[in-house]
Structure formats: C-alpha cells, structure tokens
C-alpha cells in the first residue's frame, strides 16, 4: 500500500525534474559552461525513477495485491526469484524498467561526455529529455503500475508459467539496455547534425554507445532465442515469429551503423548513412516496443490489448520521426570533397556493400512482419508469412554477403590492389573441397547447399588465418567475424543434419526405426510448490550402441491453470538430443518429439563470440587514450 503511493509520487516527481531539466537546458544553451544544476537534476530524475522501480519490486516481493499490476501478475506461491522478475514480466513494469534505463543512460552520458563541446551535450540532453518526458506521460497516463484495487484481493492471478524461467527473467532488461542505448545514439546524432560536428572525434565518442547497445541487443536476442528453444518446445533457435523479427530489425540496422562508425573514425565519409541508420535503429526499437506491447502482434509477449496505448506510442513515434527527418534535411551538410577519393576496391566500398546487404535483409524482414498487419487493416484479409518467404529471399544473398565479409577486412583503406590476393583464391578452392566432402552423402539441393557452405567455410578459414597472421592488430573485428562465420556454419550444418521423430506413445510402448529406438519406460508424478510435474522416463537407443536417458517434463501450474512442457536436452559439443512430451486431451497417448540437432551449442557460443568481439573493441579504445 505504502510502497505503491511512494512509487506513484516519485514517478510524478521524476516527470517534474525532467521538465525542470528541459527548461534549464534551454536557458543554459547559450552559456559557456554546463550549469551544475542540470547534472544534479538529471541525478534527481534517475533517483526518483529508481525509487519508483524499487517500490514496485517491493510490492511484488510482499505480494501486495492492493496494487493492480501485482494482482494481475503475481501469486503468493511463486518463488521469490520469479516474484522479482515478475516486476518486468508485464506491460507496466517493463515500461518502468525502460524508463529506468533511459534515465540511467542520460546520466552516464552527461558524466562521460565532458570532453565534448557543451552545446552538443545540452542538445543531446534536450532530445533525450523529449523522449523521457514522453515516456513519463505515457506511463502515468496509460499504464500506471501503481493502480489501487479495492477491496483488496486475497490472491493474485499469477505470472504466465512460461515466463517463469531464468533466461526470460534477464532477457527483457538486457534487450532494453540495447533498445534504449539506441535512443542515446539517436539524440546524439541529431545534436551533432544540428551543430554540424560529425567528425572523427565525434565518431570515436559515439562508437562506445553504439557498441554497448549492440552488445546488449545481441545478448538480449540470444537469451530470447535460447529460451524459445528449450521452453516453447518448438525445437529450433529461430522461427521468424513477428516478435523475434521485431528485435532482429534494430539489430541489423545497428550492425550496419557500427560498421559506418568504424569508417567514420578513419575518414569523413558515409555521414548520411550514419544519420539515417541512427534514426532507423531508434525508430525500429520504438516500433518494436509499440508492436509488441500494443498487442498488434498476437504472441507470448502481448500482455494486453489496449488501443489507447498503441495510439499514444504511434503518435509519439511519428512526431519523433518527423522531427528527425526535419533536422536531417535542414541541417545535414554533405562534405563535398569526400566523394572524390572513393576507389572501388577498398575497405570503404566493402563496408558500403555490407550496408546495402544489411538494408536488404532489413527490408525483407520488415515487409514480412508488417505486410500481414497492413493487409488486414486495408482489406481485412488474414494472412501469415512463414519461414519459406525469409529463406527464399535471404539465403541466396548470403553467398555474396559472406564473400564480401571475408575479403573486405583484407582490403586497405582508400585503395587496394590485386596483388597478394592469390592465397584468398587458394582458400576459396579449399573451402569448396571441404564443403563438397561434408555434403557428399546429402542428396537434396546439392548445388545451392555447396555454394552456401563453401562461402561459409571460406569466411571461416579466412578469419582463422587473420586471427593468427595479423598480430592482433584488429583483434575485435577478427573475433566478431570469426563468430559470425561459426554462427552461419553451425546454422547450416544444423539444418542439413538435423533429424526428427514425432510419435504418439503410451506408457510402456516403444518405437523403432532403422536408426533409433525409443522406449517409454514410465511416468512419475511430483507435487511442487506451484505446479504438479509429470516426468516421462525414456530410453533412446541409437544404432551405434549409444544409449541416452531422457526425461521430458510436463508442468501443470495451478495459478493460472496452464500446462507447460519442459524439454529435456542432452547437450554435447557435437549435437543436442532434444525431447519434449505433451499430453493430448488427457488420453493415454503422449505426443513425443525427439530431435537430434547437431552443433546446437555452437550457435549460442558463436553469438557469445560475436558479442565478445564487440567487448574487446569497447575496451581497446579506452586503453589507448
């Protein structure tokens, strides 16, 4: 009760301090030095949001059901860990978390940017405050996390059990750091455009922020993907579900932006790209929040269908886009002398090619995600766009993309020549042989698979070679590219060599084909704190004599009454053995899916490697200064 009141009023105080910051910033704009009041108020703003957030967490821990958010999303029998993570497992709480990250980031930005010009800092702060104020009003008006209910209910409705999972407890905060990081980039780019200070120094300053949000966005997507793999029982790592696509789109834009910034650090080219990509990344992050939270994409993530919220975010988003486009067209000046020294065979060109590919992938994903919504609005026809659409449009372009990625980093800035490129070709021949060998026994679609696998192997070999021959000069890039090649390789091999058995079995029955024998031994029932678990006991005998014991689980939660299946996964370095079991209509038969997924763990490892590359780059610059 008390904590809700404190939380609500600190939100309002937070809004007040934001407005005060906004006012002081405008007054202070012409002065020479930054008013210390601004810094204090930015701290105060952060402080109020932290208080507000903590009081919500406290309400969740104490199961204070006089609070509507807690009532809707918590339950006394829930373990403490999930009571806490339940704070951001819902619409209101997740927005409060978003706000917390926003205010924290602008505070860090002000602290860390004192070597930049004062006008630039003030302008960035101004733009950031527009976003912060917008979100304050949004939270207080449409999704206040501190609404009272009277009479006070005795028990809450509980958190959706599939969200009660460690990976999903940390997935939203990490993803949000990535999303919100893009807002700092957005504000900073607008400020730099107005002041016309897009320069090499600015690039190395903003690169930190780009790296931070890029790393967190990648990790956030990774956690979501791992969770979907073992919790949803779909048996894979990526499903082209709209909600996944929505997080992939800002990642693509951000990756392109990161590469542009790297070029910009060396010479002043591609400035329009930087501005447009920053605006795109931020818009897509906001769009992501809008599409997911408004319930337009009907999925696991949509907590409520509230048109008012959707409308507010939409209007807010459009005004920000118009503002940024206006600023871009009126203030952005191309540096005319730049275009001269562009030679076709250079690092810049290869990064430009990379950008075009990224933009292409981005538009494919965007159209596939948006088109069904669009069609339904204009013609009320209901359609869905499945994986074949994405595969067909993306896979053929991976081939040149991978090649460009292998060759690009070996080119020089400005101009490179064709000498010493013989070994590049040698490596290519080698990769064709290797992939031909790997695919020898596979009869389906041999040509396209060979081409794809060759280019993936090519990138793999080249990056390994670069790791050792370049004396760690460009270590971060090498690690990240190596991670990416590993990712593509694992995905391809995983696709080629996965096998699957889907059957319905009764207890005591067994199934046998020419490779595997599955024996359903028995089931065990246990009563846990907030669910009843049914564990199936299976023995899987492989033709090579290996015997595995797999124990997939069904959980019947009491509050809310939902059944979830917990897959049992035996992970090894070479392959994952995955089994999930479902009951059908309480009949004797259980629906069983058994999959062998090669190189599954390498998909996760490679994404971690990619992030690690980013991390090295983040710390490297710091040491040099």
């Amino acid at each position, binding site marked *: 009760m008390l904590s809700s009141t404190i939380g609500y009023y600190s939100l309002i105080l937070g809004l007040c301090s934001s407005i005060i910051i906004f006012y002081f910033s405008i007054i202070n704009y012409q002065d020479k030095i930054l008013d210390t009041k601004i810094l204090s108020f930015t701290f105060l703003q952060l402080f109020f949001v932290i208080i507000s957030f903590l009081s919500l967490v406290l309400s969740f821990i104490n199961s204070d059901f006089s609070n509507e958010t807690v009532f809707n999303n918590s339950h006394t029998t829930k373990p403490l860990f999930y009571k806490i993570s339940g704070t951001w497992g819902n619409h209101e709480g997740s927005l409060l978390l978003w706000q917390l990250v926003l205010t924290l980031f602008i505070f860090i930005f002000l602290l860390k940017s004192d070597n930049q010009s004062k006008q630039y800092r003030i302008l960035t702060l101004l733009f950031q405050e527009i976003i912060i104020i917008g979100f304050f009003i949004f939270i207080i008006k449409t999704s206040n996390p501190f609404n009272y209910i009277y009479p006070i209910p005795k028990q809450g409705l509980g958190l*959706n059990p*599939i969200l009660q999972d460690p990976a999903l407890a940390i997935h939203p905060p990490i993803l949000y750091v990535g999303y919100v990081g893009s807002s700092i980039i957005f504000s900073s780019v607008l400020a730099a455009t107005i002041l016309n200070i897009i320069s090499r120094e600015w690039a190395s300053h903003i690169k930190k922020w780009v790296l931070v949000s890029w790393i967190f966005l990648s990790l956030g997507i990774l956690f979501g993907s791992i969770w979907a793999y073992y919790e*949803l*029982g*779909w*048996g894979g790592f990526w499903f082209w579900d709209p909600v996944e696509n929505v997080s992939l789109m800002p990642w693509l834009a951000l990756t392109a932006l990161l590469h542009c910034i790297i070029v910009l650090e060396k010479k002043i080219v591609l400035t329009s790209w930087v501005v447009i990509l920053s605006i795109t990344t931020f818009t897509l992050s906001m769009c992501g929040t809008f599409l997911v939270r408004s319930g337009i994409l*009907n*999925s*696991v993530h949509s907590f409520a269908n509230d048109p008012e919220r959707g409308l507010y975010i939409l209007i807010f988003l459009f005004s920000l886009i118009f503002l940024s486009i206006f600023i871009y067209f009126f203030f952005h000046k191309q540096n005319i002398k730049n*275009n*001269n020294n562009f030679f076709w065979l250079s690092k810049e060109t290869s990064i430009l090619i990379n950008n*075009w590919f990224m933009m*292409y992938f981005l*538009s*494919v994903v965007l*159209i*596939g995600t948006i*088109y069904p919504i669009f069609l339904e609005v204009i013609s009320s*026809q*209901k*359609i*869905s*766009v*499945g994986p*074949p*659409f994405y595969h*067909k*449009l993306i896979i053929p372009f991976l081939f040149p993309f991978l090649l460009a990625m292998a060759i690009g980093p070996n080119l020089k800035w400005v101009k490179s020549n064709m000498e010493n490129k013989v070994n590049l070709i040698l490596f290519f021949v080698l990769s064709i042989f290797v992939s031909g060998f790997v695919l020898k026994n596979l009869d389906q679609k041999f040509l396209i698979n060979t081409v794809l696998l060759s280019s993936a192997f090519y990138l793999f070999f080249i990056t390994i070679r670069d790791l050792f021959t370049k004396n760690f000069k460009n270590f971060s890039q090498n690690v990240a590219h190596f991670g990416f090649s590993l990712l593509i390789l694992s995905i391809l091999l995983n696709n080629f060599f996965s096998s699957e058995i*889907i*059957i*319905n*079995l009764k207890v005591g*029955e067994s*199934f046998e084909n020419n490779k595997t024998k599955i024996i359903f031994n028995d089931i065990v029932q246990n009563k846990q704190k907030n669910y009843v678990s049914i564990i199936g006991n299976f023995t899987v005998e492989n033709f090579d004599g290996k015997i595995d014991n797999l124990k997939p689980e*069904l959980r019947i939660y009491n509050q*809310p*009454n*939902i*059944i*979830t*299946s917990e897959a049992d996964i035996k992970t090894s370095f070479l392959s994952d053995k995955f089994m*999930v079991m*479902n009951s*059908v*209509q309480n*009949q004797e*038969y259980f*629906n069983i*899916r058994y999959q062998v997924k090669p190189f599954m763990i390498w998909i996760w490892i490679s994404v971690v490697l990619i992030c690690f590359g980013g991390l090295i780059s983040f710390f490297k610059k710091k040491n040099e200064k």
Partner: protein
Amino acid sequence: MYGRKVKLRFFFVVLILTTLILSVFLILKSLEENVVYFQSPTEIKELTDIGKKKIRVGGMVKNNSVSINSKEISFVITDFKNEINVIYSGVVPNLFSEGKGVVAEGYLNDRNFFTASKILAKHDENYMPPEVKAALEEK
C-alpha cells in the same frame, strides 16, 4: 560535356535505383508465393476451387472429436456453422484441447478433409486466435 564525376554519380544513381527496383520486385514476388491465407470452415465450404496452396484453418476443436493413435491425431474444427475434419501427425501444442481455439496449417484434400502439417502453439489459457474470434463474432 559532362565531367567524369557527374558521369560516375549518374552511374551510381542508376545502379542504386535498379538494385532497389529489383529487390522490391523480388520481395513482392516471393511474398505472393509464400503467403498463407487464413480460412474458416465456412469459407472452405464456399470455395469454388480447392487449390494446391498451403492454407490455415481456424476455429474451435469440436467436443469429443479428438482421437489419437500412434501415428496420427484426428479432430474436427468447427466454427459452429460448418465443420472440417483434420488429420495431423506432428507436435501438439500444450493448449490443444477440446472446446478451445485452434489454428491448423496445411493442405486441403477436399472440402471436408484437411491434412495439417502444423498446429500453432499460442501460450495463453484465454488465447483465441484473432481469426477465430472474428469468425465467432460474425456468427
């Protein structure tokens, strides 16, 4: 005479435009091929041509219609006006149950029989596919 720079820039603009047009064309073309339409049992009954495209059928699982053997699951999808028989071998989502909403993806054998390749899993006890909701509201 135009200078080299102007020519180069012209070349770039043409290149970018053709790439753009080409990729938009590609995307739209493959969108047309890979889109899956949603239909209710009533709409299927009214079809003049069954067609060979993949479709989605949505509705409620009819009570007492689910039967299961070691290979297949069969059930009836109803929108309370018309029904369609579905045969499915594959993974059944947790929330699949009689009297609940369901969306099945697959191919029509004829107007009464449907072979599903996928049953969609949506994880919410109150979840009803928006398509089903709309179909029920029309009733």
